[in-house]
């Protein structure tokens, strides 16, 4: 049988989706362990064998892939003011599918410099100053970076008056520096798309090859984008529709994995009432955040951090000493599935709390303030209270009733009244993990991708 094969090389699993060549629907999906240590082609072959066991022999006529294998796209970003250009740079990198390891603001210190050299990111994004604004900071930071033993390309997307000079400083010291339009050309204006396109092109040209993922040329040229970008494309298409085929409107999505928790929102999130004033940087319509410190296994301790342990005790009724031991086991044994009743309760509580923290960090917040003109509200970030659809991506850890119960923790709650999360939503779930696959064909075949997503994710629950 001829198929179009869509592949998502994840950090742990390689997930495949086979479509018939006319793109009428899904023939099958399968997953196997990612084999970064040897060649990712091996894990892919294992997944294809699993698929063939179900669907019969397949002949791949076309292969498209996205990847977050081998650490994904690791980036560091720097800006001038923490809430302005540094935040714009962070948004740009996250939307381009990167794992942002650290955000630097103001002048890089010697200590920062050694940290950067130790991290050796895949790309460094250097910003600072509006166009015609501050020049000193980005120049100083370019000089600091130029002295480092840094192998990655450096994107210069700051004040355009000095961007060429920054490039020169870096290039003279043997660094690959690329000038892009400023991420914040005017105060409060976000211009992140050009940088994101450059990041994607670097990812394709350099980073995939540099990671030594495979020796098979065809496989490497099939990799189109980092996985989160594919997911964002899929979600945007599902939300907005294409031509006469309507989308399903504003939505949020979460992907809770063993090491991280990704949250997406496709919604404007403007203030809902006239006595609300919006502060801070405007946020992207299609927004992604990723919490690198919370996950169901490797980062289970991150969920229990701060007052998390107390909440977990309260939620699953297991004493804290025993909980600590159980969490230790989970974080060391990343492929462990819950067996005992207690383990199931813990997984349920971990998922609930992780989702709560990740959605709070993603959504905007509101603050009440009394003025001579009466009660006013100051909103920062997106107001997602009216978003009424939530998609759970993958999620083998909680299903059925457990999923519905965990979903409650993504909602607006009186415990966190300032957090502007959805009040009510229907829960959809991408059980077969096809969102990234649909994102891969969203550009060339939007109509088909949209119909498949509606069928598989929205209507066939």
């Amino acid at each position, binding site marked *: 049988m001829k198929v179009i094969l869509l592949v998502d090389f994840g950090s742990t699993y390689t997930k495949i989706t086979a479509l018939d060549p006319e793109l009428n629907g899904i023939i099958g999906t399968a997953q196997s362990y990612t084999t970064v240590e040897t060649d990712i082609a091996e894990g892919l072959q294992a997944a294809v064998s699993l698929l063939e066991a179900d669907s019969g022999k397949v002949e791949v006529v076309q292969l498209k892939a996205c990847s977050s294998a081998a650490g994904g796209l690791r980036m560091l970003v720097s800006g*001038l*003011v923490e*809430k*302005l*250009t540094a935040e714009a740079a962070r948004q740009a990198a996250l939307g381009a599918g990167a794992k942002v390891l650290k955000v630097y603001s103001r002048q890089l210190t010697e200590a920062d410099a050694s940290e950067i050299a130790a991290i050796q990111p895949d790309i460094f994004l250097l910003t*600072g*100053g*509006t166009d*015609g*604004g*501050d*020049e000193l900071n980005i120049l100083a930071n370019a000089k600091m970076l130029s002295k480092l033993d840094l192998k990655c390309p450096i994107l210069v997307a700051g004040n355009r008056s000095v961007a060429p000079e920054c490039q020169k400083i870096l290039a003279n010291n043997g660094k690959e520096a690329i000038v892009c339009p400023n991420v*914040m050309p*005017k*105060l*409060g204006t976000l211009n992140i798309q050009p940088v994101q396109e450059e990041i994607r092109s670097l990812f394709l040209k350099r980073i995939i090859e540099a990671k030594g993922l495979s020796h098979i040329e065809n496989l490497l040229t099939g990799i189109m984008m980092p996985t989160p970008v594919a997911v964002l494309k899929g979600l945007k298409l599902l939300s907005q529709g294409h031509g006469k085929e309507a989308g399903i409107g504003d939505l949020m999505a979460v992907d809770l994995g063993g090491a991280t928790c990704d949250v997406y929102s496709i919604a404007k999130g403007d203030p809902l009432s006239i006595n609300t*004033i919006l*502060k801070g940087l405007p946020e992207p319509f299609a927004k992604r955040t990723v919490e690198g410190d919370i996950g169901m296994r490797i980062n289970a301790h991150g969920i229990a951090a701060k007052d998390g342990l107390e909440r977990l005790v309260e939620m699953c009724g297991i004493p804290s000493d025993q909980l600590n031991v159980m969490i230790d086991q989970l974080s060391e044994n990343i492929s462990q599935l819950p067996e005992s009743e207690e383990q199931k309760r813990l997984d349920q509580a971990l998922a609930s709390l992780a989702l709560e923290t990740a959605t709070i960090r993603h959504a905007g917040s509101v603050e009440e*303030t*009394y*003025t*001579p*003109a009466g009660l*006013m509200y*100051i909103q920062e970030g997106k107001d997602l209270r009216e978003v009424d659809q939530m998609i759970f991506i993958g999620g083998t850890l909680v299903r059925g009733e457990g999923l519905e119960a965990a979903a409650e923790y993504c909602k607006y709650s009186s415990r966190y009244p300032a957090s502007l999360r959805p009040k009510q939503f229907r829960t959809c779930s991408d059980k077969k993990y096809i969102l990234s696959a649909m994102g891969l064909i969203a550009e060339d075949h939007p109509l088909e991708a949209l119909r498949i997503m509606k069928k598989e994710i929205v209507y066939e629950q």
Partner: protein
Amino acid sequence: MTNKKKKLVLGVIGADVHAVGNRILDFAFSQAGFEVDNLGVMVSQEEFIDAAIETNADAIIVSSLYGHGELDCRGFRDKCIESGLGNILLYIGGNIVVGKQKFEDVERRFKDMGFDRVFPPGTDPNVGIQWLQADLKVKNDSSTSSC
């Protein structure tokens, strides 16, 4: 260098929502040849300072109409110094204190707080423009039309 427009950061401080005067000043200063980044109403000291750093502004122009300006502006100059803006030109104007007080006293108090110029209620925007041009040494040539 001489052709570069001088940059101003403009806004209404504190919990003050009076937007009309703010829009008038934005228009008047822009017409007079300044590059204006207008932060609008309900602006905190930190927002003024962040904006001024990122845009490398030449002056911060603070408005206040609701009478709480004195409280809102406390420590503003200190924060500028602490943030590396040092002696950036700092103006304030409007109905900046409670009740009817002698303007000379008000002006002195705000100057003690580190403001360079203090303007009483009902000041014509042109007065502010003239002071700005003097303080920032802008030549009043053809690029600055009167309004």
